[in-house]
């Protein structure tokens, strides 16, 4: 089994008629993901992707007509917060938000508003989820992974590709790879995903890729020490990053001395987690387990 997504996933794409949404929908379909609907307000009734996928005006109607149970969001940042809430209101249980640039206060409100509902929000500013060989809900290139027993969770995009690719080169496969997003406020944190991997029969080892900013990795380290039986390999990006500078991701910033790579690496090591010095060392560490 994989985590969060599987062949039962019936995906709808919010923003399917846009440039990004259209491109990645084609990629997801090719990979084998079961896309059942698209939503673009004002374009309801159209059919896209060679006439295969119906477009609806709202998530509500799309879900009613197609039984969609997951949504992926590609709409521009100023509308993306609204899109998340629309999906949540329509009863979608898994929402993956790829969009980068949602104002952080909007995310504070959204996170609080859906916190009492049974909804899993991944992102925003996430590359999504891939579970080789058949399901991807996101933008992670399909050809750089192979099926296997390593779960990967990360705050980053291309750095994650680098890691799953290095695993594949070393003939190590991935059970599920989840990008939780590079924003300061995201729907799902490391601990949520680690607990899923701990309970997943297909996953034997977990790779956790963190970066500077916040205290998520430190909290995850405590969780691993107290609750995980499966081995975890860590990597933290940003040892060479200066303080008080946002390193590309909105969440990647050392503020008031909080969020340094040193602090995170120490926390992981104290929890008994092996920490790789660079991405390509991760497969070597896994092989030594």
């Amino acid at each position, binding site marked *: 089994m994989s985590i969060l997504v599987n062949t039962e996933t019936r995906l709808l794409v919010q923003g399917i008629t846009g440039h990004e949404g259209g491109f990645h929908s084609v990629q997801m379909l090719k990979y084998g993901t079961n896309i059942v609907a698209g939503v673009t307000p004002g374009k309801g009734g159209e059919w896209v992707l060679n006439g295969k996928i119906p477009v609806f005006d709202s998530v509500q109607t799309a879900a009613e007509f197609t039984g969609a149970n997951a949504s992926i969001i590609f709409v521009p940042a100023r509308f993306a917060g609204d899109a998340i809430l629309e999906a949540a209101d329509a009863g979608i249980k898994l929402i993956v938000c790829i969009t980068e640039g949602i104002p952080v206060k*909007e995310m504070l409100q959204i996170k609080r508003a859906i916190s009492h509902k049974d909804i899993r929000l991944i992102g925003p500013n996430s590359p999504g989820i891939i579970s080789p060989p058949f399901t991807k809900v996101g933008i992670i290139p399909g050809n750089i992974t192979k099926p296997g027993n390593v779960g990967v969770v990360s705050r980053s995009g291309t750095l994650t590709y680098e890691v799953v690719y290095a695993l594949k080169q070393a003939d190590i496969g991935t059970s599920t790879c989840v990008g939780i997003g590079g924003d300061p406020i995201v729907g799902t944190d490391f601990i949520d995903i680690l607990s899923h991997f701990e309970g997943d029969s297909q996953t034997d080892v977990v790779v956790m890729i963190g970066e500077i900013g*916040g205290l998520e990795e430190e909290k995850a380290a405590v969780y691993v020490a107290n609750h995980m039986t499966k081995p975890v390999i860590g*990597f933290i990006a940003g040892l060479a990053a200066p303080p008080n500078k946002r390193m590309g991701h909105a969440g990647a910033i050392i503020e008031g001395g909080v969020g340094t790579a040193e602090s995170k690496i120490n926390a992981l090591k104290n929890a008994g987690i092996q920490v790789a010095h660079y991405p390509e060392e991760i497969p070597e560490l896994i092989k030594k387990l």
Partner: protein
Amino acid sequence: MRLHEYQSKEIFANHQIPVPRGRLASSPEDAKLIAEELNRPVVLKAQVLVGGRGKAGGIRLVKSPGEASDEASKILGSKIKEIPVRRLLVEEAVNIQQEIYIGMTIDRDSGSTLLIASGEGGVDVEEVARTSPEKIARVYVDPLLGLKDYQARNLAAEIELPRPLWRSFISITKGLYQSYQELDATLAEINPLVITADGRLIALDGKMIIDDNALFRHPDLVEKRDFSAEAPEEIEAQKFCLEYIKLSGDIGCLVNGAGLAMATMDIIQHNGGQPANFLDIGGGASAEKVAAALRIILQDPQVKTVLVNIFGGITRCDEVAIGIKKILDQIKTDIPFIIRLVGTNEKEGREILASANLETADTLQEAAGKAVQKSLEYAP
């Protein structure tokens, strides 16, 4: 985006927060005129977006309009921590009895706004938090409910503010919270908020940082953006939608994706070198964008080697290779390049690089090792 003190105070004044009377001056004549209008001792405050301007001589107390003019002519045009002073805030001087701190920011950990107050203001609050945490009062504001009266009242009580000032303190705290909300700020603070000798509360200094992701809602602020505190190459990079941060090392880096860009800097350091910059060209970059990025890297006189690390997903390796070749045709440079292209159209990209005699690497570790070696060997 950080606002100037005068901008923050304008916003505060619009939210019923008392601020000293005063105005902005851009010439000694202006300063003199404002001092005459105020008709009492005034403070001249350099409007530069750097910390510690008081210690650097950017704040002066003067007793007469003539003195205001003389001092203003000294500060205007001078530099504070490399930033030229173009404007001064000229304000009435205030008799200070006590300095307080009040500020609010996003608390990632709790997913709410954290309000902090301290009876010891005027100093670095992070320092107070480290050395005497008991002097810091905290409340967490629910993002859906907003700030409630009792929360502001609890802060007043906890910092032992005299009871006659509670009403004013609550009004100021709520005004600050409204400013913070309306402007999509990620930080708003009054430091110091002072109790005057005649028993009033007044905001002596203000700081606000606006969420860059919310600037589309504040075009008026974007228009007034002050770039003087930002590195020119970082401003140039923004024009091309590149994320560039200048660092102190000598290996220039060009990478797609923020996490991978950080990891590339780290692996250079791991191999004994130092990165000259952080640079993320984003996803799906065109050859033009790659060329613009390289131009910015090569403008840095410290750069002795360039390391390009691309993991192609939506970014196409051949497009990156075309951009590299293009810039090397335009700019004659003997600075060595080490290029690693993996992913979409990798083969086509490598062919383009081979035709231009550029050195490539297969793994990130190999690329970093080679780049550090080249940077040590390089002699201009």
